[in-house]
């Protein structure tokens, strides 16, 4: 019985000219966005690969110079992209693409691509994610708003029920029919999309991210299922099909358009972040005199001096077997690192609290939940950015320490006149970054995933119940 209803619904939908048009448009947009996303991914990857090799070359080709000068010269780190970012660009346009790793400073990432774009960027990117988050739900609404309300208006609902069809069977049949019609769009689009991506990406990179993409696909299915269920429930409950349409469109607008922005401003108010100016001032202040304002640079220098003299049993700095300037530079780094950890830690936690609030708001607007999951799996959410930033920072610290240690233990009495040979540059390994695992990405998304599942469960409970109470006329 359910299968029959589903088949009828499916056939009817496929024959509907409006659906064909809408589906064709969505298909073209989806296909185009996947192809363009793939191209963008390749372009950026090639640029970053070249730049990474070049910055490494520059580091290695430094002439003999003082290690501290080399640390000041530093290297650049470029944020790599993962293959699934072709489907969802996430926050990538809004975070800097590279960071300069140099002595003394944990720099901010610079050059946000959106700064170099026109204001059109603010209308959103055309990505597969945007199509799936916004347009497919709209298509679902168009497919199903009149399912029950329309049958009632045409008088066929009474006829149908007079045949003894159980209302719950009707509900499941209709749901399957809509899902089938949607599947007729999504399955070929996915297959073609995957083929297009596979044809354009280097061997292996796509296979490596297959789990992430498969999970993405499944999360989107959850999102679509909630929309199908919701649309059917509203259609069963609304007085007229026109009313059902208006209610569903209103929900779509709140879900897709209003919720993200409204919650952004609330999150900013609940978890405020400092201005870049205040942030830098606070860091400068603590670099000078410690978190409590008493641990001044002079005191720290004196304490270091006493400690080192004691350690080597020396009377004066000149008697030390090591170079005190090198030790003192490294001491300064250690002090700075603690300051950076504290401030960046606080800042990033605020960002994460803001993002967490957005995830929870997914209870009201499922788009917030799927958006978060999608970015997370594409490797383009803030958590991935933070992970890269932390890895780059830790590399910076290793590099700078190597330079300072060389001064401390090899410079003898030469201080800043000391020149290290290029062999030293080679002792610093190139910066290699392993993208976090799929499990890690998923763990960041537990809240959003739970909310998506909750939506599906709630809808699957509510929808048949609502249909069971559908008024015949």
């Amino acid at each position, binding site marked *: 019985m359910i299968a029959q209803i589903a088949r009828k619904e499916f056939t009817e939908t496929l024959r509907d000219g409006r659906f064909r048009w809408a589906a064709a448009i969505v298909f073209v947009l989806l296909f185009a966005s996947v192809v363009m996303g793939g191209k963008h991914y390749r372009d950026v990857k090639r640029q970053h690969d070249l730049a990474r090799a*070049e910055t490494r070359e520059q580091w290695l080709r430094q002439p003999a110079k003082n290690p501290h000068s080399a640390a000041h010269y530093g290297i650049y780190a470029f944020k790599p992209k993962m293959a699934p970012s072709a489907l969802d660009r996430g926050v990538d346009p809004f975070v800097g693409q590279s960071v300069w790793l140099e002595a003394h400073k944990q720099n901010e990432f610079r050059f946000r691509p959106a700064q170099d774009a026109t204001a059109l960027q603010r209308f959103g990117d055309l990505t597969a994610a945007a199509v799936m988050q916004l347009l497919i739900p709209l298509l679902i609404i168009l497919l199903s708003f009149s399912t029950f309300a329309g049958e009632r208006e045409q008088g066929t609902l009474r006829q149908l029920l007079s045949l003894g069809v159980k209302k719950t069977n009707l509900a499941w049949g209709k749901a399957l029919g809509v899902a089938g019609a949607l599947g007729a769009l999504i399955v070929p689009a996915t297959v073609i999309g995957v083929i297009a991506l596979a044809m354009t990406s280097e061997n292996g990179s796509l296979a490596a991210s297959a789990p992430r993409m498969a999970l993405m696909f499944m999360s989107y299915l959850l999102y679509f299922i909630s929309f199908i269920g919701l649309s059917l429930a509203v259609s069963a409950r609304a007085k007229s099909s026109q009313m059902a349409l208006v209610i569903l469109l209103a929900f779509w607008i709140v879900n897709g358009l209003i919720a*993200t922005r409204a919650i952004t401003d609330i999150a900013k108010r609940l978890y405020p972040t400092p*201005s870049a100016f205040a942030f830098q001032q606070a860091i400068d202040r603590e670099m000078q005199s410690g978190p409590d304002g008493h641990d001044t640079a002079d005191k720290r220098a004196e304490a270091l001096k006493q400690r080192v003299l004691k350690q080597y049993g020396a009377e004066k700095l000149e008697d030390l077997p090591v170079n005190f300037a090198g030790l003192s530079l490294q001491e300064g780094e250690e002090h700075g690192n603690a300051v950076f950890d504290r401030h960046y830690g606080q800042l990033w936690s605020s960002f994460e609290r803001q993002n967490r609030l957005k995830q929870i708001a997914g209870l009201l607007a499922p788009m917030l939940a799927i958006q978060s999951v999608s970015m997370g799996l594409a490797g383009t959410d803030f958590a991935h950015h933070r992970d890269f930033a932390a890895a780059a920072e830790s590399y910076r610290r290793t590099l700078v320490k190597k330079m300072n240690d060389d001064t401390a233990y090899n410079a003898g009495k030469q201080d800043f006149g000391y020149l290290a040979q290029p062999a030293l540059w080679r002792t610093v390994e190139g910066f290699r970054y392993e993208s976090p695992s799929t499990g890690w990405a998923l763990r960041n998304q537990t809240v959003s995933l739970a909310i998506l599942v909750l939506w599906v469960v709630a809808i699957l409970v509510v929808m048949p119940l609502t249909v069971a109470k559908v008024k015949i006329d």
Partner: protein
Amino acid sequence: MSQTLTRIIKHEWKILVADRTLWVIAPLFALLIGYGVYNGSSWMRFQDATLEAAKQEERERFARAKAEVTSIEQGAQPASAFSNPRLPSVAASRTGPRYALAPPAPLAALAVGQSDLYPYYFKVTSQSKQTFTANDEIENPTNLLAGRFDLAFVIIYLYPLLILALSYNLISAEREQGTLAMMISQPVSLRTFATGKIGLRALVVLALAAGFSLAAFLLTGAGLSADGVWLRLLLWMAVVGAYGAFWFALAILVNAFGRNSATNAMALAGMWLVLALILPALLNVAVTTIYPVPSRVEMIQATRRASAEATAKGSQLLAKYYEDHPELTAGGQADTNDFYTRSIAVQDETDRLIQPVIDHFDRQATGQQSLLDRFRFLSPAVVAQSALNDIAGTGAARYRHFLGLVDAFHQNWRAHFTPRIVQKALLVADDYDRFPAFMFREEPAGAVAGRAMIGLIGLLIPALLIAWLGLRALRRYSVAQ
């Protein structure tokens, strides 16, 4: 205006007041506008506070530097040669830099626009511009991606929906209720009837939009005394009006096709989707494909190469620099080992080497913008966005204006210090008061108005054209279903 039209409008007013829709929509609209302006204004206050903090830092730094200069003049030793505030090179880059501040424009509270992406202050030093222009404000990238809930957002996206909600069934509902036939049996044409109905709705919606916006704007404590506020407010309202007119016109046209209300609603929602969401995204794709902005990553590398090349040629450059600038060494001896002069020469050379890269970059970015300026007319939402950002002073135009001022100031700053550095002058405390200071001059209101006018025309022409088509098509409207 004929008597009939007045009567229709009065009658419609009574119906509208008696109907629930307006009473649901008006408070909702007020709420959205209020929330939008409130968010915009708190962002504006945040910027103001930051600029105030920068000014204070500058004052304190200057006071400290002057005190130190005075004590060195009286015989004290500077803490180190690298931080001696009497040296012009130290003053130009460490103790004496001044801030170039761009205070929020008078209507900035109405549209956050691009201002959350563009720096609004720079600490100008004698070093290369690249060293101080990447001065981004801290922001959670997820927030930047979502965008802010400001008045411009309400106007660009939600206000058309409100208009469509009030007018999608303008005539179709009358027909479905059976009142249309009765109405048309009176001596009144369908076109006059439609004009009256839409005219009243337009008046009501515009009055609500303008009234709520103005009230919210005044509630934020914004002054109306600043230069050009009134003109800007007027332009803002005009753009809001013209943008609204476009959507009303579209509603007439769709109604004129004579379909039922549900189909009208779907058609209008579809057009809104295409014009406000899909087309801008497609336009973005087109613009960035035709004029791809070169990668910043390549630019970073180019800068690094140039800097290495220039540093390697240091001594040569220094000699050449003395040759090129005999006036700087007039009467004195050229110091062939001078660290500071050498770094000026190296820096000049670096800037010269990367200039082609920057030029290429700017060319592509300008290309994008001018392509967008031409093709924005395809989507009224894009026209409205760029006009509203422009009027609020949070768009690209004002930022470029600011960058131009900063550029001139930077040159001025270098011109002030370079001779003193080369001639190894020693500064006295009062010299600090004579450093060049940055003055932000607002763009002339006429320039803003000129650009806004183009946007206005770009909204009004399609609006009038569509309204005309709609009214013409109404002639063939079949009153019976």
